[in-house]
């Protein structure tokens, strides 16, 4: 039994949350929501626990794909159920299963209608996202990638704000458009190589113009998901309308699906195109970092502000990818994980306020620190982390990316470091207006401080942000070997030998 488990850890990580979600749906009784909640929490925690061996049993020094398992799934197309993880996917899988637990706890009293469906959506989504991070077969990956849209679509649409229908349909169609182009690229690669194995694609050489088309098809899918400027417009809408849990999962994990996929598909499959187009990619990243930060500055809605801040921070991630050096790439991965914690915490903070006052507008608040001192302490801490204060995890990733960028081009680093200024400006200005000053109105005066449940999740997240900020070594150890392998792969041209490029 134990042996079976150790050989199929990834399958358990994927299917246990999905199975728990189905059980929650099946047993659910609208009259006894507490049973449903405890059951969901149990499922979430169990799903988190089964992912822990991925960290403890991972061979850091070796890199490469580990915990591989698989069988032939659809022989007619040579599609395999093939799973495996490397140093980039493991931290993201842990992040996913951890965030799901946080989301379940955070929804405890907040979600009152259709509790079972809400919990089940998040559990199933968690499994599907872990599937995205661990699939080594293109179609398996694609199925997880698309299937994950369905629960998210429902979460935003059922439990979202007033403009939820517009936001959720926009979210779905944007993502679908990009993904379908990626599917065409997969079919093309299948027809050329006869396989959907990702590792086969790594070896397959293509002329530059084909690589560029393949890269652009992937770009359509991943740039929308990350999101990169100018295809980011779905994100602020989706974030604003989504319930707190939806925003947390979107920001903490869904955006990372895009970043991860760049590293798994677009860059290693079409490395020459990635180098060829890196100038454009860096430009788009810098626009996101600087311009979107300015956009964040003028937001009146707290969730929208954090959404724009997410886009700006993800600009760092793509910048780190496309400067092609160790520091940049590792910094980008650290930034992805760290942003997972910080943005989740920020959205939870907004959720705490929204549950009490039912407004996300900055102007509805003022002087919250007077009535909610404990909450204010956490919120200010997370805001500091968001601006990249040294000692928090936000600092590590950004600093590494800036160091990496300066090796390539001084001006990249110069522009990127603007985010430290703008980030501080929009975050701290929001904090000032919401938390400090006189008590603005009777709503704020009536606020009650954090309850035990909220305190617990805030404290866990704060601890993680701090630990990762002071001692990021475990994370960088995990990714180090994989990043080195990836960079050496990217450095080799995959253009066919003997043909002039461009043919």
């Amino acid at each position, binding site marked *: 039994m134990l042996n079976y488990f150790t050989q199929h850890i990834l399958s358990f990580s994927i299917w246990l949350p999905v199975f728990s979600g189905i059980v929650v749906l099946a047993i659910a009784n609208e009259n006894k929501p507490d049973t449903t909640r405890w059951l969901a929490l149990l499922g979430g925690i169990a799903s988190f626990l089964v992912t822990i061996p991925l960290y403890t049993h991972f061979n850091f020094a070796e890199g490469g794909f580990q915990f591989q398992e698989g069988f032939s799934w659809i022989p007619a197309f040579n599609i395999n159920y093939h799973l495996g993880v490397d140093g980039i996917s493991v931290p993201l899988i842990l992040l996913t299963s951890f965030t799901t637990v946080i989301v379940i706890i955070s929804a405890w009293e907040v979600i009152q209608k259709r509790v079972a469906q809400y919990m089940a959506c998040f559990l199933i989504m968690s499994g599907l996202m872990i599937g995205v991070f661990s699939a080594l077969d293109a179609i398996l990956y694609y*199925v997880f990638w698309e299937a994950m849209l*369905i629960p998210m*679509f429902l979460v935003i649409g059922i439990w979202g704000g007033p403009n939820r229908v517009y936001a959720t349909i926009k979210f779905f169609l944007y993502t679908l458009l990009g993904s379908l182009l990626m599917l065409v690229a997969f079919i093309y690669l299948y*027809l050329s190589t006869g396989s959907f194995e990702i590792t086969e694609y790594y070896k397959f050489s293509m002329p530059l113009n084909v690589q560029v088309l393949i890269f652009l098809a992937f770009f359509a899918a991943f740039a929308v998901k990350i999101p990169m400027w100018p295809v980011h417009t779905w994100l602020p809408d989706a974030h604003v309308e989504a319930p707190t849990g939806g925003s947390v999962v979107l920001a903490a994990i869904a955006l990372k699906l895009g970043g991860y996929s760049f590293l798994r598909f677009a860059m290693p499959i079409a490395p020459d195109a990635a180098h060829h187009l890196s100038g454009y990619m860096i430009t788009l990243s810098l626009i996101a970092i600087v311009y979107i930060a300015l956009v964040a500055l003028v937001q009146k809605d707290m969730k929208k502000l954090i959404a724009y801040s997410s886009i700006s921070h993800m600009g760092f991630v793509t910048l780190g990818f496309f400067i092609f050096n160790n520091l940049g790439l590792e910094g980008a991965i650290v930034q992805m994980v760290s942003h997972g914690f910080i943005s989740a915490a920020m959205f939870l903070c907004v959720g705490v306020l929204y549950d009490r006052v039912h407004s996300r507008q900055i102007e509805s608040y003022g002087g919250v620190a007077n009535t909610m001192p404990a909450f204010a302490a956490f919120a200010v801490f997370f805001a500091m982390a968001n601006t990249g204060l040294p000692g928090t995890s936000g600092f590590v990733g950004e600093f590494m990316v800036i160091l990496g960028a300066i090796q390539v081009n001084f001006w990249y680093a110069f522009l990127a470091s603007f985010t430290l200024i703008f980030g501080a400006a929009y975050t701290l200005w929001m904090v000032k207006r919401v938390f400090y000053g006189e008590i603005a109105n009777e709503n704020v005066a009536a606020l009650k401080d954090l309850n035990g449940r909220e305190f617990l999740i805030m404290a866990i997240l704060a601890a993680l942000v701090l630990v990762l900020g002071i001692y990021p070594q475990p994370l960088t150890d995990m990714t180090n070997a994989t990043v080195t392998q990836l960079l050496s792969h990217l450095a080799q041209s995959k253009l066919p030998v003997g043909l002039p490029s461009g043919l």
Partner: protein
Amino acid sequence: MENIRYDLITALPEIVIVCMAMFILLADLFLKPTNRIVIYILAQLSLLGAAYFTFSTHVPSVGYAFTGTFVDDTMADVLKLMIYLGTSMIFVYSRQYIQQRDMFRGEFYALALFSVVGMMIMVSGQNMLTLYVGLELLSLSLYALVALDRDNAKATEAAMKYFVLGALASGMLLYGMSMIYGMTGSLNIADINNALMSGPKIHSVLILGLVFIVSGLAFKLGAVPFQMWVPDVYEGSPTAVTMLISSVPKLAAFALVIRLLVQGLPTLAVDWQQMLMIMAVLSIIIGNITAIAQTNLKRMLAYSTISHIGFVLYGLMSASMNGFIFAMFYVVSYVLMTLAGFGIILLLSRKGFEADKLDDLKGLNQRSPWHAFLMLIVMFSMAGVPPTLGFYAKFSVLQAALAAGYLWLVVFAVLMAVVGAFYYLRVIKLMYFDEPADNNPIVAPMDMRVVLGINALALLVIGIMPEKLMELCIYAMTTSLS
């Protein structure tokens, strides 16, 4: 003597259904209205009997009967079994609906069974005239079925429209056949192919014939620019009949395309590929874009059908073995999706109330989470979102088209699929995000609930494990076309 014996055994399923249909008509005269359930059981039994004979006489080889006008190959057997299955499901879904509308009579079942025979002959015909007779038997039964609710003005208008345009299409098909006959001297599919292979013919006459044949086929499939009848007939017919028109006959129409174009006129493939290509692209555009503007669920599904047919044509126009296999896979998936979709409409309808407006689905998740979930699967499957069957259907035909070199057409189809996703999402939005406008309890017999549940869940299960269905299609096509 031996020949006649073989002929009769080969056509046994058809003979069983014809006899039963006539028996049902007779029996209906002697049955009290309260005992009409006997008719229903007889109809189901005749499908079961035909299925038994089709299955038990199946051999993985090609056999000809009635002096080469009738063929028994694997494709025919597989498609016939699908037709029985689909029709049987239609009978289950529609029983309550037609009882409530005073259509629960022998005629309904007799006509439906005759249409099944028509489809079977289309599937097995190996001679242009046999195929034509099968097509007419199907069409005439359907015209009568549409008008069965004779006091319903909309249904009568739909029947009239269907009949006039259908007769025109049949005429075109027949005219095209006569051209081909004139050039090759034979009506037999295999002989036509041999004649065209053996020597030069006047190309322009062949093309003229081909254009008429393709037009006739396009009408029966409901492909643009011959789609005008589809939305009106779908909307006007009683939902039970719409379900019959929109689902299983597409299997027969697919077989007709294979018999006429792929087996009979492969030498003209370059020409019909181009025609199918234009129809495919237009069907996908018009189907998907017009569907967005619909408020009537049946009309929306009509336009959705047109776009699905466009995808089937993507497979056929590839003119490769894979293309035909995947087109068949698509048609079978389409039939399963359509049956489940109309099944939900029938489920929500009750006496004096047709749940055929999009708004009638509002808040279904609060009225019945289970049925909302089933419809959710159907809609995502139609939109082609994994892990549902519709995804593999689209994936495989697009793969065939890409292998045939139609890269930009595939990209185009993919973009239109996003447009299509919008109106399917709108249905889900109505079910999940809106408050119910209608709080009547959903009443349905247990057999319908169970079959509908299996039908919709099958879209998900086969979507996760498509291998068996895919193998069946591969088996059917590779042993029949070689």
